[in-house]
């Protein structure tokens, strides 16, 4: 069995002559939470969908759990779970019925009550899907992805449109999955999400991977400026900045502590954002 859950070499994908993915390499270790980051239209979803087997590739080598996802073999589908960006389930079944229905497709499904527990839908167990809130439906999407007790779970923008507390809950859910030993491949455009959840991240811009590493590595690799937090009595805060400026130190910004992944992201995707403004 290969050490890496996912290995990708020189992957490309063109749609009618337009190259959406332009030769990317990446690997995801077993048991790792990996986040693929990038602006809209950078090739995130195309890449994930190739890995899931939803899309064919133009060229390159792809191995997911030792399978070629392009062949869409049933034994491959039995070992992965997919939570698509936009998806639905039968709205006239209950939460438990939907999960049970999907459990029925797999040779060794995860027990129903455990799934409901992991996604936190215990109280909604017997509610019809159509009565659930948006956040609860998204949790059900994850529950359906977990039905077959997959080794590898794909989460395509799992928290888009969530309010802050729903996002925190979803993060807790992903951390639970990591504790269960699952490999998680997630895409997101929330940098704080990647920083909290991911063991490693890769940044895709214009169909190419421009940076790869742990969130901390990536955050520190870029930029000549640095942020650091000092805790001083609030009355002294302004004085500190004032004194620093007096001795010729160029203090540019004073609020958020620490250099974040978001800083790195904004810097690395700057060219593309500027292109779009024009």
């Amino acid at each position, binding site marked *: 069995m290969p050490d890496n859950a996912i290995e990708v070499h020189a992957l490309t994908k063109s749609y009618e002559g337009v190259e959406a993915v332009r030769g990317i390499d990446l690997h995801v270790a077993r048991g790792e939470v990996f986040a693929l980051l990038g602006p809209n239209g950078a090739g995130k979803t195309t890449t994930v969908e190739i890995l899931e087997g939803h899309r064919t590739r133009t060229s390159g080598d792809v191995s997911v759990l030792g399978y070629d996802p392009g062949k869409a073999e049933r034994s491959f589908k039995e070992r992965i779970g997919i939570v*698509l960006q936009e998806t639905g389930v039968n709205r*006239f079944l209950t939460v438990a019925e939907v999960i049970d*229905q999907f459990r*029925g497709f797999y040779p060794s499904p995860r027990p129903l009550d455990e799934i409901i527990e992991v996604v936190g839908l215990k109280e909604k167990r017997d509610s019809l899907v159509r009565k659930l809130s948006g956040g609860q439906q998204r949790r059900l999407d994850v529950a359906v992805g977990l039905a077959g007790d997959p080794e590898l779970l794909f989460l395509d923008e799992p928290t888009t449109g969530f309010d802050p507390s729903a996002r925190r809950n979803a993060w807790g859910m992903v951390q639970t999955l990591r504790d269960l030993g699952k490999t998680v491949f997630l895409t997101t455009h929330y940098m704080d999400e990647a920083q909290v959840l991911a063991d490693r991240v890769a940044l895709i811009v214009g169909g190419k991977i421009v940076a790869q590493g742990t969130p901390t590595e990536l955050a520190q690799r870029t930029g000549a400026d640095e942020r650091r937090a000092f805790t001083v009595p609030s009355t002294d805060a302004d004085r500190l900045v004032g004194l620093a400026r007096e001795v010729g130190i160029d203090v540019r910004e004073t609020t958020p502590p620490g250099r974040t992944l978001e800083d790195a992201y904004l810097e690395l995707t700057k060219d593309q954002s500027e292109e779009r403004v024009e």
Partner: protein
Amino acid sequence: MNAAILTGKQLFYENKSFWRNPASAFFTFAFPLMFLVIFNLIFGNNTVARVDGEPISGSTFYVPAIAAFSVVTACFTNISISMVFLRDEGILKRVRGTPLPAVSYLLARIIHASVIALLLVALVTVAGAIFYDVDIPTAELPKVILIVLVGAAAFSALGLAHTAIVPNADAAPPVVNATILPLLFISDVFIPLEDAPSWLLTFAKIFPIWHYAHSMLHAFDPTGLAFEDGNLLIVAAWGVAGLLLAMRFFSWEPRR
């Protein structure tokens, strides 16, 4: 796991969710009966209706005609529209990413639609016997069931193929109705074609609905119009064509 068992399980959930939507279930059954009543009110007393040269009463005409209409509605219209909605909502794509064989998923829907079609034909036949004195074709019953099943399979396959020309869910009802309603009007279903120009009849005969309505009429008609296997064979051939087109063009992903 065996595809047949998986189909059975899917059928169980299809059926469960069908009855959980009472408004939809009620009108699925009320719709053909409404047509039966309305057409009988307007044309039921006409005895001039001539089908293939044989005069029959309006009521005797409408029971098999609406039975044929029921099969077309329950299978073609229902499958074509609902599949586009499922495709747009991402439900089909999600199923595609699981180990459930595509054939199990589709077959469960088709079997469910066929059972509904069978129930509708039974309902229309019984209503015809009670309210309009139209004989239940007891001697021809196996033929009627065969006609329902062949029609259900063929119109389901055509419904699947039809989704290929519907771009999105909003367009599904108008596109499906624009396909099916004109054919229902020129195929001896809603009104018997008596004085229509001959080219219109020739045109209608290209499509499966005319042939389907006539195989149903022949099976029901007590005056002894022969049961013509030719009509049902044409419907079956259309079904095979629909299946081949569906295999080539059916999409599991929303169109963008």
